[in-house]
């Protein structure tokens, strides 16, 4: 659930319980917008139109309406290259940029493992060490911002959809839900 971020100076005679419950964390903003994220946002990797022969797939973040399209160049069971285009916030763009790096030259199973890893990260569950995560580690802070989790996951859900379509399976239910 969302962390309590509201506090207030108690007025005289006030019941303490009406006052914000959690200690404030003034540097949470930096947890969300880590330097690595801002770098990817300002200079995204592989942000370009998909090639004519790419496997393409799009989806929309229902919360904000932002849309993201992936272009995937496959070679057998192997992802040769992923590019993306679309509109979105820094988190979604940075996440997509990082994703194109990390799944490059991975096979489908490895990519799916990355999808699971990032989804778990958004629930605060770590499946890989910070070292293994590399830049992706910077997405950890998003978990504290529930409304932004969908931003971070947008590209990953599109990838999941694309791979499912590729091998005929359907993506796990759940992430698509909500509005």
């Amino acid at each position, binding site marked *: *659930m*969302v962390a*309590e*971020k*509201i506090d*207030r100076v108690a007025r005289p005679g006030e019941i303490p*319980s*009406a*006052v*914000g419950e959690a200690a404030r964390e003034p540097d949470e903003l930096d947890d969300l917008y880590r330097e690595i994220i801002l770098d990817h946002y300002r200079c995204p990797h592989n942000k370009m139109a998909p090639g004519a022969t790419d496997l393409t797939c799009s989806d*929309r973040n*229902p*919360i*904000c*309406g932002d849309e993201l399209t992936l272009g995937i160049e496959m070679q057998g069971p192997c992802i040769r290259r992923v590019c993306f285009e679309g509109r979105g916030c820094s988190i979604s763009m940075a996440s997509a940029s990082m994703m194109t790096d990390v799944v490059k030259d991975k096979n489908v199973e490895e990519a799916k493992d990355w999808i699971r890893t990032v989804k778990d990260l958004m629930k605060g569950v770590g499946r890989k060490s910070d070292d293994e995560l590399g830049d992706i580690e910077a997405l950890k802070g998003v978990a504290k911002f*529930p*409304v*932004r989790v969908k931003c971070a996951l947008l590209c990953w859900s599109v990838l999941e959809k694309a791979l499912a379509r590729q091998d005929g399976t359907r993506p796990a239910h759940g992430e*698509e*839900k*909500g*509005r």
Partner: protein
Amino acid sequence: MALAAERQPVLDVQAVRDLFPILEQRVHGKPLVYLDNAATTQRPRAVLDAMAEFYESYNANVHRGIYAFSEKASARYEEVRSKVQALIGAAAPEEIVFTRGTTEALNLVAQSWGRANLREGDEILVTEMEHHSNFVPWQMVAKETGARLRCARVTDEGRLDREDFRANLTGRTRIVALAHVSNVLGTINPVADLAREAHTRGAIVVVDGAQAAGHLPVDVRALGCDFYAFSAHKMYGPTGVGALYGRLDLLDAMEPTMGGGGMIGEVTLERTTWADVPHRFEAGTMPIAEVIALGAAVDFLLDLDRETIRAHEERLTSYALARLKSCRGVKVFGPPTTAGRAPVLSLASHDVHPHDLATVMDRDGVAVRAGHHCAQPLMRRLGVGATARASFALYNTTDEVDAFIRSLEHAEAFFRGS
């Protein structure tokens, strides 16, 4: 709170009453004896506090808000969905749709599921004991679609006539709509059995739980119903909110009945796609403070434990039934014992019109309701224009039952002129 002592389900009524400041009031100089709980219950302080806390410390519109208040309000709002799910034993929070109350919930099913699925010649089966809110919506959709509205009879004892129910349940019945508890007779319908019969005929089962949710343990999956509707204000929650439970696969296939903010996927001039359930059915700004306060009411009910509440209310009902037996010229409608009976008592006096009864009793501080109770078909069946109705809640006491009987006798004497 541990008002229900463990392993011995006896409610500490005095402790409960302390949670309801309004009960200390005096009316016309007499202590208030509030016995109109079937119309609306009072609210415990925790419910009022939940609402005040929202308005005073994080009031904001929910969903989509990126700032602290809105995030907190949204999270609390959605948490209540899970609380209601737990309260009624739904399979998933998505099966809970917030509405203005029972009436809107039942209309939603009639207009969405009904309009889409009813054809000329289809049948809708209701019972003679339905509240207008579970009668008129079906009549309206029947008229619109050419379906036929049928009505199962009530026995002289005020129970559903099972034979007549079966006779009216045909291969063309698409919908069976019935009250879990009658708001006039107190009758608890055997919903699980009736649902089984209805399902074998291929009908869906819509249950009006307005009088049950605050009084009985409710488990929609054990009941086997497809839809279940109730109002917060009859279960210690605020006015302006209620809920519809719907089986996920049914809800998923349903069209929204209202368009607006929050229920859409994408809107273009040409076409609009809908959001997933339950948001598809929650158009516009919802009663946010009210939903949050409903959450507090659910906590309150679960905390006290509904078996314990039920036992207390059964004791009151049984005591009242016994005392009423000695009231000359007073007829009590509905089942004669507390078996299959909720704490709602309707009565008619031979000599005194229900409205006169209610007026005199009011002057004694006793709040009862007189009228047709939005159940005109049932009034016709009972052969009366109106009844006087006393209905109990968990904060009522046997002393209050005594005050009620005293006042009833006072009213009788007053009009009889003895």
